[in-house]
Every structure is written in C-alpha cells, then in structure tokens.
C-alpha cells in the first residue's frame, strides 16, 4: 500500500470518527430531551436508561400540562412578541444604517463604520447590573418592551456589520442605474437593494431571532411578573419549582428549541451565504 493511499484512509477514518463524536455530543442531549418529554414521570423514574423510542407509548400529556397548567402558552406569546418585534426593528435599522455607512459620504463615516462592533465588545454580564439598577430607579423594570430595547442594542451592531459587508458586495453601478432610471435614494434601497440583499437580510433576521428567542440573562434580571415571562425564563421557573417533573421541563425545553431548529434548517443556506458574502470580493 502506498503512502498516499494510507494517508487517505487514515484521514477518512479520522473524519468519520470526528463526525460521529461531534454528532453524539450535540445530538444526544437533544434526543434525550425529546424522548423524556414523550414519557410519563413514572416511566422515566422506572427505566431511566431506556433509550429506545416506542411510537405506541408516545405520551403528549406533558406538553398539554406545560402549555395550559403552567402558563407556557402565555410565555410562547411573549417570546414570539419580543422576538418578532426585535427582528423587525433590527432588520429595518440595520438596513438603513448599513446602507448609510457603505454608500453615503458624511463626516465621521469611517469612525461610525468601525465603531459599530466596538459596542459589541462589552459582555452582557458587565452591562446587566448597571442596567438593572438604572431601569429600577427609572421604574421601567419588569417590562417586555424594555427587553426588546436591550435585545435591539445587543443585536443591532452585528446586524449592521453583516449588512454592511453584504452591501459592499453589490456593484454600485446597479444603484447608479436606478438613480438615473428615476429612483430616489429610498426607492433605490426599497426596489433594488432590499430585493438583492434577501440572503443578507434573512441571515440578520435569523441571527436576531435566535438571540431574542434564547436570551435568558436579561429576561431573568428584568422580569418579575410571571405573565410577562419569556420562554427561557419560564423554563427556569419550571425547573426550579417545588414539584420537579422531569418530563415537563423536557417538554418545555423542546418548545424552546424547536422553532430555532426549524428556522435554522429553513434559512441555513441564506445564513451561510450572508455570513460569507462580505468575505469575498466581487
């Protein structure tokens, strides 16, 4: 056997092994979570090591209980509201801002352009305490709209940066053609830039949605009233409650994870394209 061939085989084996290990680490907890959510508490306690899934014994009672007896219907609505509003605001502002720093010439443009990411360098944990104190004093704490503001501040820099990179890949001549054909700046953005940036916009939307949907720290600190809880906050509430029912926590966790998973699978192509578009010239 030649050396090249041996090398090839070794690389192949390593690649497969790597994938298997990686998938096991990522997928196993997820599988475990779904499995447990389909069982009754008794089953889980009796046979904790049972990894087989029997379709006939699927039990959706945990979902019913979580949704209607533990207030998760409300939490889902809250999370949808927070995420959707954040996504809409973030995408809109990032489009306008990203366009401005790429195409328009104004004083401080360079500084603006580079300082966008500077904001992102403050970790959330550094900000959460001062914000908590500040908003408490102002009497704004315990508000869902406040959460939207915080999420927006967190996601907008990255969204701006992503769209800026995306806009830079669009040839300016297309916009010039639009301007000569009768567009104003805003109609150029609306009729030419936005349709052409669909992948970039989709990736910003997905990124923002993931952050807003999953975020826990600020939701935990800022929200006190159970009616205002978001999903992630609700799961922790549930997990910390007196009667620890594993299947309920698992069902709640599935409800948190599933939308993200579905969105990601639907938009994954755009996300990857949107993220790499800025890296390539032309």
């Amino acid at each position, binding site marked *: 056997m030649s050396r090249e061939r041996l090398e090839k085989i070794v690389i192949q084996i390593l690649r497969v092994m790597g994938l298997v290990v990686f998938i096991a680490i990522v997928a196993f907890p997820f599988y475990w979570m779904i499995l447990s959510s389909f069982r009754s508490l008794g089953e889980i306690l009796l046979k904790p090591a049972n990894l087989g899934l029997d379709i006939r014994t699927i039990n959706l009672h945990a979902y019913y209980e979580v949704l209607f007896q533990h207030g998760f219907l409300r939490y889902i609505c809250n999370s949808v509201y927070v995420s959707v509003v954040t996504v809409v605001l973030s995408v809109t502002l990032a489009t306008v801002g990203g366009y401005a720093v790429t195409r328009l010439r104004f004083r401080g443009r360079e500084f603006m352009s580079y300082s966008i990411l500077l904001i992102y360098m403050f970790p959330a944990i550094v900000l959460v305490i001062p914000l908590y104190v500040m908003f408490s004093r102002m009497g704004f704490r315990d508000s869902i709209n406040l959460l939207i503001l915080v999420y927006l501040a967190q996601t907008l820099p990255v969204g701006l940066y992503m769209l800026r990179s995306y806009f830079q890949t669009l*040839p300016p*001549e*297309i916009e*010039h*053609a*639009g*301007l*000569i*054909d*009768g*567009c*104003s700046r805003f*109609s150029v953005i609306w009729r*030419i830039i936005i*349709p*052409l940036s669909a992948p970039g916009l989709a990736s910003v939307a997905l990124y923002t949605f993931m952050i807003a949907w999953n975020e826990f720290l600020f939701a935990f600190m800022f929200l006190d009233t159970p009616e205002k809880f978001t999903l992630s906050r609700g799961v922790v509430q549930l997990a910390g409650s007196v009667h620890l029912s594993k299947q309920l926590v698992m069902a709640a966790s599935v409800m948190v994870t599933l939308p993200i998973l579905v969105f990601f699978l639907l938009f994954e192509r755009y996300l990857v394209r949107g993220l790499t578009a800025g890296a390539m010239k032309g």
Partner: protein
Amino acid sequence: MNMASLSLKAITKRFGQILALYGVDLHVDHGEFCVLVGPSGCGKSTLLNIIAGLIQQDEGSVLIDGQSVDRLAPRERDVAMVFQNYALYPHMTVAQNLGFGLRMRGVPKQIIREQVLETARILGIEDLLDRKPRGLSGGQRQRVAMGRALVRRPRLFLLDEPLSNLDARLRASVRLELRHLHREIQSTIVYVTHDQVEAMTLGDKVVVMRQGKVHQIGRPETIYSRPADTFVATFIGSPEMNLYRGRLLHKDDRTHFQGAGFSLDIGGLQLNLGESEVEVGIRPEDIAIGQGGTTALKAKVEMISNIGSEKYIHARLGQESLTVRAPKEAAFQPGQVVPLTIDPDRVHIFHEGRRISWSAGSCSSSR
C-alpha cells in the same frame, strides 16, 4: 426625436489630493456622437458620471440645452446611461429591466408594454423578455443594457465603455450596429472608451483626454491628420506614429531635421523658431520603403510583422527605431538596408510637445 445639446464649462474635480479633471470645456451639438477617449485613469468616466449627476463636480457647470443641471438629481436630468458591466437589475426579467425607468416615471402600464416591445424589436431581443439577466450571454446583456437606455427616449445618452466586455468579433458587429442606431434615432450621445478604433469609427467628434485634461477636440480625420500634440499623435493610430527628438537646421533655403544618427530633408519650410529642439512625427503609412528616394534616407530592416492584409517593417534609422507600413507583397529580409521616401508634407512637427502648423513657406503655432 427628443435630443439635446450638452455644454461643459470648466469642469474641475478632485478626489482628495488627486486632480481627476481640470478645467474641461466641451460642447456637444444636437444629435452629435461625441467620443471621449484616453488611457485608463484619464478622467473620462468621471466626466460621464458628472454629466449624469452621479458625481458632483467641484467647479464648473453642466448645461443641457443651455440650462444648468448642476442642482438636478440624476433622475431629473432626463439622461440614460449604459454601464461597462451593464448593471442590469438581477432580480427583474428583461422586460422589467427595460420598463423600470418608465415605471418609475409613472407611465401607464399599457404604454410601457408597447414601448418595451418596440425597443426589444429594434434590438432583436423580443424572445428574451421573460428571462432574468443571469440567463443571458454577454452580448444579450449588452443589448438589454442598451435597450434600457433607449426605451425612455432620453435627451442624452451616456455610454461608459459599453463594448469592452464583449469579445473582439462581437465588438466589431455591435460597433456597426451602434453607428446604424445613431443614424436612425439621431440622438445626442456621449461615449467613453479607451479604444481608439471605437473612437475613430463611431465619433462625429472625438475628445482625447489624459490626466484630467482635454488634449484635443475634433473630427476623427482632424485628430488623425493634425494631432494637436505629441500625446494625441502617439495615442491615436496603430501602429504608433514614429516620433523623433532632434534639431531643425536651415541650409541653403531648405530645412533639415537632424535626429539621432540621421538627417531628414523637410523642404523649403520657413520656420521662425530658429534652430530649436523639436519633435518630428511620421505615421508608418507615410513612409515609402524600398524605392529610390530623394531624401537619401536609409534604414536597416530588423524585423517584419505580417498581419495578413499588410506588413509592418521594424527597422533602424540612425540610432532610432522606425515602423513602416508596407503592402503584403513587400519582400524584405532582416538585415537588408533599404532606401526610404518621406513626403515632407506628411511630416508632423512638434515644438515643446505642441503641434506646429506649417505649410510651404510659413508656419504658426496651432495653439
């Protein structure tokens, strides 16, 4: 047909420290085909963008039909532009691309459809109307880009190197079509190119530019036969004009040009320049080779390029190199020493880079 005249008054533009355009004056008449030509970076595209309103000039004024358009946005100037990379809207079909300008101007749908169809027919792209740009070849995209400009019947067409992304054969045929099209629609066109062949074949008026300055404006024949300076002389014409630095000497009522290792009799020309440093230019086709000449010039053949229809003889004249255009039948061998005949009337003389106009017995600076 809707057409306008265009005037540029002392247009100046800086990009940071770089002077992109310096005091450009130009007048283009109704229905005239004006070609801006020059090496890349000479400011010709910048000038076109200023006319379109995409770039704001620092000084000077753009007038369309005598009216200043300096304060008008591109969409208000009623001009159309064809870009080098076509700049079609990738997310629209060909029909939508063509109709976009009309749609933005609020033209009723029915009329848009008619005009799009008519334009598509003129350009022979009727069967492409439902396709997206990415499904078109380079030549087809170029046609769509032209169509998008044509359909609006603007006052002024601006074309920015529209043929440079086409392959050589297609370029030649589209060039002819453009000429036909212009004759048909009689519109005012400003056309930017770095290709002197396009400039000479298309233009009613040719503007030769370099480093943000206009070197000469004139009809193609004038540009070719009476270049204003040494830059125009060598930039226009292929193969390049032979250009030699030397001195003018007067002897027995005759003037001689003394170059490096050779002397050229240019006849009874009276120059009030005295015996001064000049440059002398001779086009390769203005030299007869291999016949007993009166100038007693001799050159040594070094190399022969055969391009099929004719031959270029590369020879050595004194210490200078010389290119001569010869018929395809010419049979010379490298190393051969041949006599040259040069008609003194065809010799261009430049003093400090500028052309000296002269005829037998008199002369004056063309400036």
